[in-house]
């Protein structure tokens, strides 16, 4: 009997150990997978894979940046002079346009004369830039192929444009997304912290036991509402309010996201800050009162300084919650990938981008990998947040006795 118990205990220990080990392993593998999928982006050609850009042989331009390519094909750059060439109008050529330059007979019955036609069209139009599949610009091609650029960490992390589906040159610049994420999160914490702190102080110091007992579950209930419900509420209530209140053309702005996130971060902030405040030793509060301080002076000068690390932890955890939040933000921020200047503009956050775009990004393509890299950035951001919480909590003042 005793022996059986011993064996059972040993088994229980093993089971716990194995499950702990497996869980840790899975987490590590997920992180590794994230980085592996994302790392492939760098070194990929900066135009669509399998395509090339070609110009007239006499054109002095050798290379174009992804941004120049995009602007040329968007019609924003119309003269070669703007990209370092001779003064000559740019003629954009896509494969679809070939029927404007060649007859059906010239192209041949099976369209197998396309390469020859391309060479001819390019040599006839000195200002032309052609965006065509690689195989049409291979052997015997008389035009000049522009040098292939590569997606570099610099263009990714420093890029100010996010147009992942732009043709021919998709733009993977994460600055607007990072900025959007930070703006929305910081806005949220700026709104949530004063209110959260006020509620925490009220609950910990001022409210009677009965009010506290009613309030605490109510606050915790807030944490249990699914984020899509918050998003829906935001879309139906907050967005129109902001649109009308500020007289904006659209109400889907960073502010709407911040407000919703603030409400979502409140339970975290309140709970953590309240615990910190309640942890102030009773004796410390009493000695303040015994010196003739009023209750409010005691809160402001003793309780808050004592719990400042806990309150900071609450704020940082709130930020962490805000940074990672996806659905509600996706629904109310308008999702324009532009570097924001005020909270009253539409913005797009990293998680919202991943959620919105992963479904349409072909697996293994540059867009797909760029989204995984976004995931890595998000991971690093939240990791930094959790580490700073650890760091702050470690600095908690210690009683020596």
């Amino acid at each position, binding site marked *: 009997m005793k022996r059986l118990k011993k064996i059972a205990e040993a088994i229980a220990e093993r089971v716990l150990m194995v499950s702990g080990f497996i869980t840790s392993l899975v987490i590590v593998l997920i992180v590794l997978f994230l980085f592996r999928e994302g790392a492939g982006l760098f070194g990929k050609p900066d135009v669509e894979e399998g395509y090339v850009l070609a110009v007239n042989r006499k054109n002095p331009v050798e290379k174009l940046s992804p941004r120049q390519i995009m602007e040329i094909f968007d019609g924003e750059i119309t003269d070669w002079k703007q990209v370092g060439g001779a003064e000559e109008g740019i003629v954009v050529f896509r494969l679809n346009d070939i029927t404007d330059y060649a007859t059906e007979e010239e192209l041949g019955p099976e369209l197998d004369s396309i390469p020859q036609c391309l060479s001819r069209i390019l040599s006839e139009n000195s200002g032309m830039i052609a965006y065509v599949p690689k195989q049409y610009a291979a052997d015997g091609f008389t035009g000049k192929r522009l040098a292939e650029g590569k997606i570099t960490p610099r263009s990714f992390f420093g890029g100010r444009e996010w147009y992942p589906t732009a043709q021919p040159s998709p733009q993977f610049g994460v600055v607007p997304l990072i900025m959007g994420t930070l703006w929305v999160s910081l806005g949220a914490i700026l709104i949530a912290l004063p209110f959260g702190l006020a509620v925490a102080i009220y609950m910990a110091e001022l409210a009677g036991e009965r009010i506290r007992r009613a309030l605490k579950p109510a606050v915790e209930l807030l944490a249990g509402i699914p984020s899509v419900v918050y998003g829906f509420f935001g879309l139906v209530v907050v967005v129109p309010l902001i649109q009308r209140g500020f007289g904006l053309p659209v109400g889907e702005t960073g502010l709407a996201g911040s407000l919703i996130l603030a409400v979502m971060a409140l339970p975290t902030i309140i709970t953590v800050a309240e615990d910190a405040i309640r942890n102030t030793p009773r004796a410390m509060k*009493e000695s303040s*009162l015994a*010196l003739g*301080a009023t209750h409010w002076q005691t809160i402001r000068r003793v309780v808050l300084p004592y719990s400042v690390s806990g309150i900071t932890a609450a704020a940082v955890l709130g930020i962490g919650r805000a940074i990672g939040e996806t659905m509600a933000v996706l629904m109310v921020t308008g999702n324009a990938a532009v570097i924001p200047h005020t909270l009253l503009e539409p913005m797009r956050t990293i998680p919202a981008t991943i959620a919105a775009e992963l479904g349409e990004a072909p697996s293994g393509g540059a867009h797909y990998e760029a989204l995984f890299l976004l995931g890595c950035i998000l991971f690093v951001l939240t990791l930094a947040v959790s580490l700073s919480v650890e760091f702050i909590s470690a600095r908690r*003042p210690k009683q*020596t006795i």
Partner: protein
Amino acid sequence: METSSISAKDVNFYYGDFQALRNVSLEMERNTVTALIGPSGCGKSTFLRLLNRMNDLIPGARLEGKVTVDGEDIYGKNVQVVELRKKVGMVFQKPNPFPKSIFENVAYGLRVNGVRDRETIRSRVEESLRGAALWEEVKDKLKRSAFELSGGQQQRLCIARALAVQPSILLMDEPASALDPVSTSKVEDLIYELKKNYTIVIVTHNMQQAARVSDRTAFFYLGKLVEYDRTEKIFTHPSEEATQNYVTGRFG
């Protein structure tokens, strides 16, 4: 410095339904040290905390009877609790400095009471630290955190903090119970010094300490004041058997 006398008359005290003090009447004279002794839960701490109305903070606490300081009813309608607590300082069982610098700990009571003048604050801090026999040890590190001090130094800092608001009465709730013997003896010497300028009431579990520092001793048992007399008499010829048993260590 002006000191004060304390008087309690027919005091009953309740925590909700529990009666913590039964008909306690006690007179304490100016410039004396009164020790309150008795086993745990006998009501001695409750009595001490009555004197600066610290028990007000406890929900359901209720007092019957009359407590006066210098003849003034401290539970009267027009009493400002904040003013009372300035007059009746308190030192707690565990050293509990604020999470501030040594200087700010002592200056705290002045600041919350609206003293703004920097010179006044500086000189009062020094005076209080000297009064608590701590000045020489900390005068070069006033800006350092109070948590860096040893337990005994922290407790003397707490005494200095209480002295800074210039009370006339000092309440001490087992002020040396968390300290080592060396620190304890320093605190005891200090109490002896402070007696010249303050009326002191001290709760202690330590019989020797009560015998060493106090002029008068009150023995509490089960919420009642069993005996109150000169310390010498309590420890040598107590009138009550219960007192005799307690001070000789037969129970408690």
